[in-house]
Structures are given as C-alpha cells and as structure tokens.
C-alpha cells in the first residue's frame, strides 16, 4: 500500500517538474539559482547575497529561489574556480568583492574576471579610517602624527584588517607610501566584524573597516571615524561630517570596493539580460535602499559594457597598487 503511494508521489513529482518547464520565449530560471559567495558566512558579501535572496523571495522577483552557497576556501578562489568550471550554466551566479582581483594576483591561482561573464555592478563599498573612541586622536592629522612618532619603535601603531594582501592591507600600504614617515604593523584578521571588535577591545590602534562593520560601535561611542577613503564625502546624513582623506591629510588616497555579480563563462545572453533586469528590480526595493543608507554604500548600478570596462580598469588599478605594495605573487 505504502509502496503504491510512493510511486504515485514520484509520478506527481515528475509531472510537476515537467509542468514547470518554460513555454515563453524570454529566458527565465527553471530551477533554483545557485548564488555563490566567495567568502565566509556573516561578512559583507555574504550579507548582501542573503539580502538579495531575501528580497527576491519577499517581492517575488524570481520564479525560482536563490540558494546562497558559501565557497570561501583559498581567499575565495574556491568559489571563483567553481563558477569558472560551469561553462554556459545559466543557473549560477557569484557575488564578488575585491578578492576577484587580489586573490589571483597574490596567490597565482588561475582565474580572472575575464573567465566570467560580467552581469551587473550593484554598489561600491566605502572605507573609513577608525580609531578607538577613548584615544585622544580627534582628527586624522593627530593620529598620523602619532603614527609617525611611534614608527619603528616597539610601540609602532597597529592597523587591523581583513586577510592578507587584500583591500585593507592595500589601503594601509597606500597610506604608508603617500605620507612620509608613517609605518604601521599590519595585523590580519579573518573577517571585518572581528577587526572592529579588536579595535573596540584596543588590541589594535586603528582599522580601515567598511562603514557597516563599525557602524553600531560608532553609535555606541566606542570607535571614532577619522576620514573616508574617497574623493567626496558620504552623502548620507549621519556620515557626511566625516572628512575625506584629502581634506583631512592633504593627500589623495581613495579606494572603493566592488560589490558586483558575475556569471559563469559563456552565460547565455538571454540569461544575462534576465539577471540584469532582476537585479535592477532588487536595487529598487525599499529594503535595498535602507541597507545602502545604513551601510553607507554607494549605489552604483551598472551593467553591460559600462560594467565590463569599469572592471577592467579596476583590475589594472589593483595590479598597480599591489605591485607598488610588493603584494604580487613572486
């Protein structure tokens, strides 16, 4: 008896699956979309991916669900290689952060953005120089003076950051190269949240965290933002009093991190178009806008050639920055 029910259940399942086959001409996902995150759970990229999956569910933007899969191994190389291997697959996308550029450049793992199909740029993430709120450094100038004073001594100022040879260290090296006499001890941690907590706990002297990673500690008056690594101030209410590095220190150091989406190599054109439209709708929801504001992210939607060109320029920029910092694979 139970056996029969099982068989019929199986039949129903098959029929359902058949019915779900698309008839329309325009491409639509026909099975769940694997959304790869080349970073661990809880980080900025992971949060954004899960937010997109959530928004898609809530507003019914996609006929099939997005399944977030973390593939963080080898500084994200695991995720990128996985997507690189899925040639022509229309049901896999990957969210990128700067490790799209830094990981292959530093480790020599064979992948590049050129292996993937650019889909869309969603936003750009800011970087801010933070110190502990109990320190006497009210401005970036104060702090840099202290950095210079302690350079080369056992009390040399410690800069905390995420990983090694990634964006945080690149920015740290940029400061050292732009301002004579500055020298930091760079302490690598596993994730951005951990970095900021180590700043609150005074285990490091400063960090270059993304705004969202330190925002709540700032509200609790435990950390103090000194300068934004951008050419203009962040235009969101509570953030706009923070000066840019140029205003604060007179040198221009700017760095923005990509939050974008790529597909596997040779992703069908129709599928790319669908994802662009889908992501566009995602970025127009109130939840997305709220997240952008709270995290002081720069909305920067772009797709097609505009996106590809931007990525190409950015890879060149990373190569230059990392070459200058001695971070390229030897």
């Amino acid at each position, binding site marked *: 008896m139970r056996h029969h029910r*099982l068989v019929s259940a*199986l039949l129903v399942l098959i029929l359902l*699956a058949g019915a*779900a086959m698309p008839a329309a001409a325009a491409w639509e996902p026909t*099975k*769940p979309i*694997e959304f790869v995150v080349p970073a661990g759970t809880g980080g900025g990229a992971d949060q954004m991916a899960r937010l997109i999956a959530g928004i898609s569910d809530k507003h019914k933007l996609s006929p099939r669900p997005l*399944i977030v*899969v973390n593939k963080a191994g080898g500084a994200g190389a695991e995720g990128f290689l996985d997507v690189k291997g899925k040639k022509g697959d229309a049901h896999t996308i990957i969210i990128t952060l700067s490790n799209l550029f830094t990981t292959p450049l530093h480790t020599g793992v064979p992948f590049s953005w050129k292996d993937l199909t650019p889909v869309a740029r969603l936003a750009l993430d800011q970087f801010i120089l933070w110190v502990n709120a109990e320190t006497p450094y009210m401005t970036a100038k104060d702090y840099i003076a202290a950095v210079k004073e302690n350079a080369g001594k056992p009390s040399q100022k410690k800069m905390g950051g995420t990983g090694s040879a990634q964006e945080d260290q690149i920015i740290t090296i940029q400061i050292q190269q732009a301002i004579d006499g500055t020298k930091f*001890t760079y302490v690598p941690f596993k994730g951005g949240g951990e970095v900021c907590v180590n700043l609150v706990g005074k285990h490091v002297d400063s960090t270059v965290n993304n705004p969202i990673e330190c925002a709540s500690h700032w509200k609790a008056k435990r950390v103090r933002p000194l300068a934004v690594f951008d050419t203009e101030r962040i235009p969101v209410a509570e953030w706009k009093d923070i000066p840019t590095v140029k205003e604060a220190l007179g040198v221009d150091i700017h760095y923005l991190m990509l939050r974008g989406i790529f597909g596997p190599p040779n992703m069908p054109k129709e599928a790319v178009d669908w994802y662009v439209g889908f992501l566009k709708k995602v970025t127009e929801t109130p939840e997305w806008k709220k997240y952008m504001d709270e995290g002081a992210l720069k909305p920067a939607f772009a797709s097609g050639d505009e996106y590809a060109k931007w990525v190409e320029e950015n890879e060149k920029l990373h190569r230059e920055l990392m070459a200058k910092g001695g971070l390229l694979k030897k």
Partner: protein
Amino acid sequence: MRAADLATAVVLMGLGGLVMFDAVRLGYDWGSDGPKSGFFPFWLAVALVVTSGLIVVQALRRHSPQPFVSREQLRPVLAVLVPATAMVLIMEVAGLYVASALYVAFYMRWVGRHRWITIALLALGLPLATFVIFERWFLVPMPKGPLEAWLGL
C-alpha cells in the same frame, strides 16, 4: 600486524617529507614579526618523521603473531568499502540520488538478502527523503546527473 604497522609508519614518514619540502618553499624560519608560513608545518613534519621513525624501530623489535586482518574479517569490510567507493564514483557521473539508490539496493540484497519490496521501498525512499530534506527544505543542492536533468530538477 607488524607489516601494517611498518607500512603505516613509512607512509607517514613520506607524508612528513612531502610537507617539509613545501615548508622550505614557504620559508620555515622565524621572521621579523613571528614565524613565517612554513615554520609550523616544517617543524611538525620534522617531528612526524622522527616519531614515525621511532615507531618503525619499535615495530621491528617487536614480533606480533597476530595478523592485521584475517581473511574472514576482511571480507565484510570490503563488502562495505568497495560498494561505497563505487557509489562515490557513480555519484560523479549520475549524481547522488541514483548512486545512493543503487548502493542501498545492492547492499541490502547482496549482504542482507532482504525482500525486493523492502529494498525498493528503501532504495527509492532514501533518495526521495534526501531530496525533500536537503534540496527542498534546506536548499542544499546535491550533485545531479542525466536523470535529474531529464526530469528538469
């Protein structure tokens, strides 16, 4: 027993050597800000080689008449291991669901000699349950093969 002991220790020594080789490439000394990448692997590997070496010496000195595994013991072990390996191989091409159904059916019939009806129930039920729990509830995609592609899953 002695032969197996020796073989294992020798394999471990080889492994240690391999690790040392890579650790040298990474730099195994103490840099200006603490140990380099290869420092710990290198010394761990050195210790592994030395310890395994001592185990070799120990094993050579001691005689144990008992064999590592007798023929009667080996048969059921291989009866589990070989089909399991085959299942993983099939998984690569046909996906997890087909492979696990075949494996369960094969083992139950060959070792357990269960009735076909029980076998069919479990061999189909287990992949189905896996599908529902992993793929539907927890949205963990499992490896799939041509069958699933044909079904459009």
